[in-house]
């Protein structure tokens, strides 16, 4: 996976995670370009598109778009599952997550993502163990 973006229907970036080294300027350009393409797509359209030499997999949950860039040989369907799994994790953690949760606790969202994916690869396929790790780390945080 090259990167994961979360953005709102209004085109505001909510989360970005880059797994390949990209220059700041290119990042901005790519984000802008992608948001434009994805937001222009109609709801009935499929979740995949070919963009530059990457494949984009996106899915909309409520007002948020989750968007991943993967390589040619990667599996689109499993990427959709990754997105879904991430949403489930957020949901479990925040208790029926909404966009505001992610805006105000954006660092938490990152922590969850980091526990779930690392370097663009799935770290743990079990929801439970990811959540446990997060909870434990949060506990540690409270103690201090």
């Amino acid at each position, binding site marked *: 996976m090259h990167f994961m973006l979360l953005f709102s229907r209004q085109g505001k*970036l*909510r*989360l*970005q995670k*880059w*797994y390949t*080294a*990209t*220059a*700041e300027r290119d990042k*901005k350009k790519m984000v802008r370009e992608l948001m434009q393409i994805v937001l222009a797509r*109609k709801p*009935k*359209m*499929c*979740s*995949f*598109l070919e963009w530059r030499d990457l494949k984009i997999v996106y899915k909309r949950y409520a007002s948020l778009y989750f968007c991943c860039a993967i390589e040619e*040989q990667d*599996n*689109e*369907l*499993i990427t*959709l*599952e990754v997105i879904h799994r991430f949403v489930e994790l957020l949901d479990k953690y925040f208790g029926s997550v909404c966009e505001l949760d992610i*805006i*105000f606790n*954006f*660092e938490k969202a*990152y*922590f969850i993502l*980091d*526990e779930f994916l*690392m*370097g663009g*690869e*799935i*770290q*743990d*396929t*079990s929801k439970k*163990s990811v959540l446990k*790790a997060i909870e*434990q*780390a949060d506990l*540690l*945080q409270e103690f*201090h």
Partner: protein
Amino acid sequence: MALKIVKGSIDRMFDKNLQDLVRGIRNHKEDEAKYISTCIDEIKQELKQDNIAVKANAVCKLTYLQMLGYDVSWAAFNIVEVMSSSKFTYKRIGYLAASQCFHESTDVIMLTTNQIRKDLSSPNQYDTGVALTGLSCFVTPDLARDLANDIMTLMSHTKPYIRKKAVLIMYKVFLKYPESLRPAFPRLKEKLEDPDPGVQSAAVNVICELARRNPKNYLSLAPLFFKLMTSSTNNWVLIKIIKLFGALTPLEPRLGKKLIEPLTNLIHSTSAMSLLYECVNTVYIDVNTPPLPSLSLSLCLYLSLPPQLCVQKLRILIEDSDQNLKYLGLLAMSKILKTHPKSVQSHKDLILQCLDDKDESIRLRALDLLYGMVSKKNLMEIVKKLMLHVDKAEGTTYRDELLTKIIDICSQSNYQYITNFEWYISILVELTRLEGTRHGHLIASQMLDVAIRVKAIRGFAVAQMATLLDNAHLLTGNMQRMGICEVLYAAAWICGEFSEHLENPMQTLEAMLRPKVATLPGHIQAVYVQNAAKLFATVLKSQEGNTDSTAAQETSQLMIDRLPLFVQSANLEVQERASCILQLVKYIQKLQQKDVEVAEEVSALFAGELNPVAPKAQKKVPVPEGLDLDSWINEPPSESESEDEQPKAIFAKEEPKHSRPRREEVDEKELAKRREARKQEQANNPFYIKASPSSQKVYQEAPGVEHIPVVQIDLSVPLKVPGLPMSDQYVKLEEERRQKERAEKKKKEKKKRKEKRSGRGKKHDSGPESEEDITPAHQVDIVTEEMPEWSIITSYIFIKTKSYCVTVHVCSSRPLADSEKLPVRSHRAAEAPKSPTEDGDATSQEPKKKSSKEKREKKKDKDRDRKVRISTGLFLCLLGNHSHLILVSSGLPGINKCIQKSKLVFCFLPLTKVYDIQGNLQDGSQVVVSVIFENKCDSFLKSMEFNVLDSLNSKLQRPEGSGPHDGLTVPFQLPPGVSNEARFVFTVQSIIMPQKLKGTLTFIVKNEDSSTHEKLDFKLHFTCTSYLITTPCYSDAFAKLLESGDLKCSSVRLEGVNMPFHHLLARICFHHHFSVVERIDSCASMYSRSIQGHHVCLLVKTVSIDAKCDEPTLLGNVLDEIKQTFSQC
């Protein structure tokens, strides 16, 4: 002190935390930038404080601002400070900020090494975890090198939480610091069997990713993965494993067989679509489209898994209501189509359905698929369906896409699938009625192409084009439709050029001279004017036959009346042509008034037939006496000239859109001389396939390839279509025609069977109509005699026969700059036994050949001290002469020794055989060997000398004046890590035996303080196969060859070869440079010829090969080599 702390925490209460910042930004929608700049000022203040809590808060806010697109690189050092906090809360924030903001060029990263190392070894697993996560985002080569060891230790940590993170991050470390792979690999492998499933899946992930980059090294893990695959139930892991096998199987075909069962089970049993998709994708697609399709063809894997199974599964995907599955199904289907067109074609209905889908991306995918699915039988039906879609399509982009696809589908591979060109012209005419399309020029070029190349269609085409011209106002009605008016260009030209077919040329002439024409774009007007003149000539001719001469004079008057409109045109081209023709007509009118018959002479202006010329024809034109291609026309431009101004631009200019054929008058005598010279050359040219003499004769007499039978359309209904045509009726007509043909064929067959039953010849199935049975109603002109398989339509030049002269473009340009020299291909480590992937490189090498030729050219010219390069324009057919010759040295004894010593890698590429363009065509004794030298050591290599011990048969060509044992100096030096290619020419006397040449390479290794002289021995293996050149052969020529009786016979049995027949053929074609002449079921005839012109004919059956060749020794050796190829698999 206590006061200070209290004060600090009170301050903190007034600080904004992240939530405040976010809220603030949301409340300041109007002046966000201003608000944020004040926030940044505050943050800067906060960062100056000693309190780590305040700092962490500030850094957290900065991370948020960074996401919004603000530059926070100035705070990098503060981030490091927060990272090094001992409290997990802050450390976590610090690492998060670092992972978001740091990149390879952030200089403070250097400062973090020790901190990270400390965190990695922290007793608290979450400290370690956070450090690993952060590191995965900003790891640099330096960090990777310094920390590789620490991370490796963590792979055996007691906590699975750490182990899995450590395993995953190793992948990033390997990428940044590849040297770490070797020491870490055993441990990584161990993790595949880790008791914790998370760690295990992490290890699978990492190895799968690594294997995708370089599968060869991971073959040994196959059994382990096989076990995992059969035992694991985790879909995430399974997908990765299947992907991994997809990468491994091309290297180890035996794996395929083992995989069949578990994979089939998975395909049948899994409910997870992602897994199913992966199976199908890997098994049928990845495996089939690696760098070398012909090799992977031999994979047993997909043989035993019938493609039908996979296509059926895909059908389920496509039928699903989920758009995503539909899309992926189509995507996978289009990949399978390449290898198994038949199995996909049966699902045509489904694909056509997808054209109705709401989702444009799905429709586009379906269109892509249709392109590959058409056959002679279903073309009309599919196009009809597409035409319906064109009518109802919304949005110009999709409609334009449809239009281009329709044209692509119809015109693919030389209009292979079109059986009725009247139908196609009607389709094109119908397409002109599309609103607002940008592809007018595309339709126009199709019209021109068809009208020029399909002679039988010209009458019909002209009639249609005349109607178009008559209704030109429909096309130019509003400005939006300007794109489509390009078709008028084609229409005008076709009507003019083939005006003899016009029923009412006068009417068309008037249509072309309407005042409205002046609103068209200039280039179209120019064509109008020129072709009006042609029409004028035709009209005159018909009118002069009559007794009444006034009609002719009236026509001239019409021209004189209307042309001034064009003379005033602002477009130079239009103006120039118009005034020229106006004067001509005025002069004609004068003659007419004197009752002089002028029609003959006027039409002579435009006489001449357009005939196809093979792309190679250029070569046959002798360079005129006195023309020195090597000399400068202009003085060479200065060296400083920018590189971009390459001859390419010149070449591109030479081919304007629908370029008018060049006409140059050459007197009859000269022509005859040339024809003679050409015949002579054909006779001497070893590459000129002398097909059966009869067909050759026909070819020479009438270069229109008339020997291809043109089937006359025999329609029961008179084909007179008033007005614009309707393509639909052709579908019906075509059906009738085919039925008739079938009936005739059956009759003929019966007769034939009675007549004789010879062993050779095509077996005719009288069963259901097969694809081949459908004969086209019209034939496309193709110069088949010499058409190399890569030639494409656009490479034809049409030249009027009368003026058979080809312009020679000589372009002087500066000599090759250093930077233009052959791009040097860097090679991987020494791979003495050739791996299949390397063979793949050979093909990628191909495009370079041309430049290599130019390089040689240059070398020669250098000797003459004349630096000249000939533009590609002159030798547009050069590529046809190339084919590769694979000379591979398999065991290079000297190499291993050498690697240890100086790490010099010496690889033999698949070599290319290049014929000299100047007269050396008959020289079948030259072989060019290219060698890539790569310096893998840290020292400078120089004074390389390449020497081969000549045998009686083969000699290394040395420059004049050098002794027979002198080495050739390699013309470059190699700094560390650099590779370069050198070419050596060998003269080979006899090619009937394979041979090995011993050689040595000497060179000086220069270190900073010392230099040593080294020597490296090697062997060059020239196989007999390598002397064969893939040469296409026609079945009639082939039959003649076999009948001639000059050939000796031999045969070989293929034992234990267990592969489908087409793979067998593919192998022979690929490895042994044969081409298939004809294939009937599981029996095929193949042909190849040696560089010295020996014919080698094979009759391949599944278990044996019968072969004939005029040189028995050569044949024996080639057969041995073929046998060897198959014994290896």
